[in-house]
């Protein structure tokens, strides 16, 4: 230990641990130069690269978010449209069913009316023929009666 202390004290003249001399300012100049060189070679280009990438990532993220929002909006839109279309289809089916029902009823009513009319006509025809037959029978019986009366009268 003694030797080191002596060496440290001896630094005033020559050597020693605390031997400050022109190394100090020159080293300071060297560090400043190194700062300038590293600024040009390292800090600026690497900083630009890193920050460009950070910017790129940020814009890409924003872009992706916007696209996602757009896709979600489109999906909601399409879902809405699908729902509407389903409703319309449902309505169409209901309408068609109603239409068919109506047509069926109409056809049924027409057929019934037709049948009724035909039956009525037939009934009327039958009545007419019966009337006619009755009329012709009564005329015939009248004539026969008259004939019988005539013959009886003639025989007398």
């Amino acid at each position, binding site marked *: 230990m003694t030797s080191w202390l002596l060496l440290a004290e001896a630094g005033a003249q020559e050597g020693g641990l605390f031997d400050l001399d022109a190394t*100090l300012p020159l080293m300071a100049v060297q560090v400043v130069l*190194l700062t300038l060189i590293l600024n040009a070679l390292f800090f600026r*280009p690497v900083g630009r690269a890193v920050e460009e990438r950070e910017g790129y990532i940020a814009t890409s993220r924003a872009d992706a978010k916007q696209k996602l929002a757009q896709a979600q909006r489109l999906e909601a839109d399409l879902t809405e449209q699908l729902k509407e279309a389903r409703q319309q289809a449902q309505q169409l089916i209901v309408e068609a069913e109603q239409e068919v029902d109506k047509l069926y009823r109409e056809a049924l009513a027409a057929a019934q009316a037709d049948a009724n009319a035909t039956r009525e006509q037939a009934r009327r025809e039958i009545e007419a023929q019966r009337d006619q037959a009755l009329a012709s029978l009564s005329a015939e019986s009248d004539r026969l009666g008259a004939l019988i009366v005539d013959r009886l009268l003639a025989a007398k």
Partner: protein
Amino acid sequence: MVPLPLHLPFAELEVGQQFYWQLGNLHLHGQVFLSSWVVIGALLALVVVGTRKMERDPRGVQNLLEFLWVYIRDLAREQIGEKAYRDWLPFIGTLFLFIFVCNWGGALIPWKVIELPNGELGAPTADINTTVAMALLVSLSYFYAGLSRKGLRYFEYYVEPTPIMLPFKIIEDFTKPLSLSFRLFGNILADELVVGVLAFLVPVIVPLPAMFLGLFTSAIQALIFATLAANYIGEAVHEEHH
């Protein structure tokens, strides 16, 4: 060289000996610059390889660099605040990376293979000049940050929340660089010494736990230095909400 009074094995660790370079009439610690150039070279090589072909889908070294960048950004943003951190990101990041590669370089590169006439290569941060240089840069930075953002209103910070704080805040301006530099210097030097002594006494296996601990400490020290630097700058640019 100072003659050593004791001939313990420690004495051969060459603590505090420098490999001097003469520049005009200035003395420089050559070993500090040599090793710092090696680690700066490695750092720059990594950066150049990683940023040569930047892609949006990062591959290879670019991943590492981006991780580091984000790590440093988060550190700076958390300490300095959303408004001012961009101006100081390169400085904080350079401190962190430089200290980190210095510490780990000092621990991982086999410097002993290279013989110097005097002194030895090691982590540049184990030299007080390096750490004081960076600590003073931090001091200048936070003064500059505060003054440029708030003008003379920066000095309101010294009397907030009460004028009683004034002497303490002034003392803080001295203790901040002092603690920054000595913490880093002491940790890294102590780590090197512990590993050195252990390796000298028992050259196998025994130093390994200390080495791992050293790597851990080194990383933590880099983080602490950068975080504190950012914190001081953040304090200086912080706006009081009245």
